[in-house]
């Protein structure tokens, strides 16, 4: 059996700890066009990139109760592209330099199309899935993703989806090695430029849980 070509990011013992800095907000459908115009002006001059992704979130439940979460994502618009597996840690707290954005330890790898099977065999169970489609903008290291989330009505069937809400999710993120303090300042000043269209802020997911 021939192994499909897989591009894997080398994860060796001495690898740099990458952190994801995140700010989130949302924008109503009516205001989407103005937001896209503004982003096209503010961000790097590239062809506007659209994407349609299907993300599955896998949980490994332990006896302790805090499940281990892995996110597997693949593109529905480029079916041949490899899957993307991501681990996000707990949000870092307390650092004076990073309070403006949500900071989490982040690990990204590419995987082959057999990823869901492998995760199932390993004991992960799919907790939820959704389809996201929208636009990606970049400005230097900053990445802005404006996406429309839809829930998958029949598990595994991505054709049959239903929109989650009448708003688009806007996320501003930066992937940087641990220890850089200027990143959240840059993110905050960029977020200022998107007001009053979108209010990008640090939303701690653990506080929203219940």
């Amino acid at each position, binding site marked *: 059996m021939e192994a499909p070509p897989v591009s894997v990011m080398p994860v060796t013992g001495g690898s740099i700890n990458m952190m994801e800095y995140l700010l*989130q907000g949302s924008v*109503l459908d009516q*205001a989407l066009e103005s937001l896209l115009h503004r982003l096209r002006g503010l961000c790097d001059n590239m062809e506007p990139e659209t994407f349609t992704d299907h993300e599955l979130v896998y949980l*490994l*439940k*332990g006896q302790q109760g805090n*499940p281990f979460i892995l996110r597997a994502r693949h593109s529905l618009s480029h079916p041949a592209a490899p899957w993307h597996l991501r681990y996000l840690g707990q949000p870092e707290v307390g650092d004076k330099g990073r309070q403006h954005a949500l900071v989490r330890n982040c690990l990204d790898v590419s995987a082959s199309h057999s990823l869901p099977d492998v995760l199932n065999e390993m004991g992960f169970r799919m907790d939820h899935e*959704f389809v996201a489609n929208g636009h990606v903008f970049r400005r230097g290291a900053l990445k802005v993703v404006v996406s429309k989330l839809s829930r998958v009505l029949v598990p595994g069937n991505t054709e049959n989806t239903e929109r989650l809400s009448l708003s688009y999710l806007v996320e501003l993120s930066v992937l940087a090695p641990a220890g850089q303090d200027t990143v959240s300042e840059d993110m905050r000043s960029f977020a200022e430029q998107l007001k009053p269209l979108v209010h990008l802020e640090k*939303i701690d997911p653990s506080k*929203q849980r219940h």
Partner: protein
Amino acid sequence: MQQREEKQLEASVDLLISRVAHLKNALNNFIYKLENEFERLAWPSVLDNFALVSGQLNTINKLLRNEKTPSFRNQVIIPLELSPDRDDELAKLTEQRVPVFSHEIVPDHLRTKPDPEVEEMEKQLSAEAARLGPEAAQKQIQTLNKLCSNLLEKLNNPREDRDPESSAIRQSKPSFNPTDTLALVGAVAFGKGLSKCRPPGPGAPGQGPMMGGGPTLQQVTIGGASGQPGKMPSSIKTNIKSASGSMHPYNR
């Protein structure tokens, strides 16, 4: 008395020379930038240069208006000797711009009245002003003042009712809904409203992840890892060992 005035004059002239030298340098740099780096020049830096030049002009003006500066109008410069020969010292002083102190450069450099063309224009303007009667002039002055004050008011007090369409849009259509933000973030972060066990919406978040996790408890054995998900990798290895022991995934 005379000496004091002379000293003052000398000091103010020196100061003026240094300020003008600064201005000259700034203009030189700006011209160089415009001629050689115009592809990379951005409008903000051009504005910066203009601001610098304007600031320096301001300083010169302030210097001239200063009380300590004697009135330069009372001083007269008379050329004592003109020669068509090249004067090296003068050339050095003026950076090669005035090599000869001759009859040609005198009208330009020692001029005190405006240029002839400018003088003509000024004469025309003052003739026209004299022709205009005093009442007409007053009316024109008043209109100008009114226009200026209107404009200033509009610029200083942005009024909502000035532009009815944009104000209506701004007030009645906020571009984002905070509840939607929380709902979307919840969906992305932990599947609020997304679980396959089909809760109706964001109303039942707690049940979703728990029900999905039920079946896994039977199959997973944890090798003594701590509660933090970040330290789970050791438990994954344990799982693989137990799975390969019981399920023989590889037939070869």
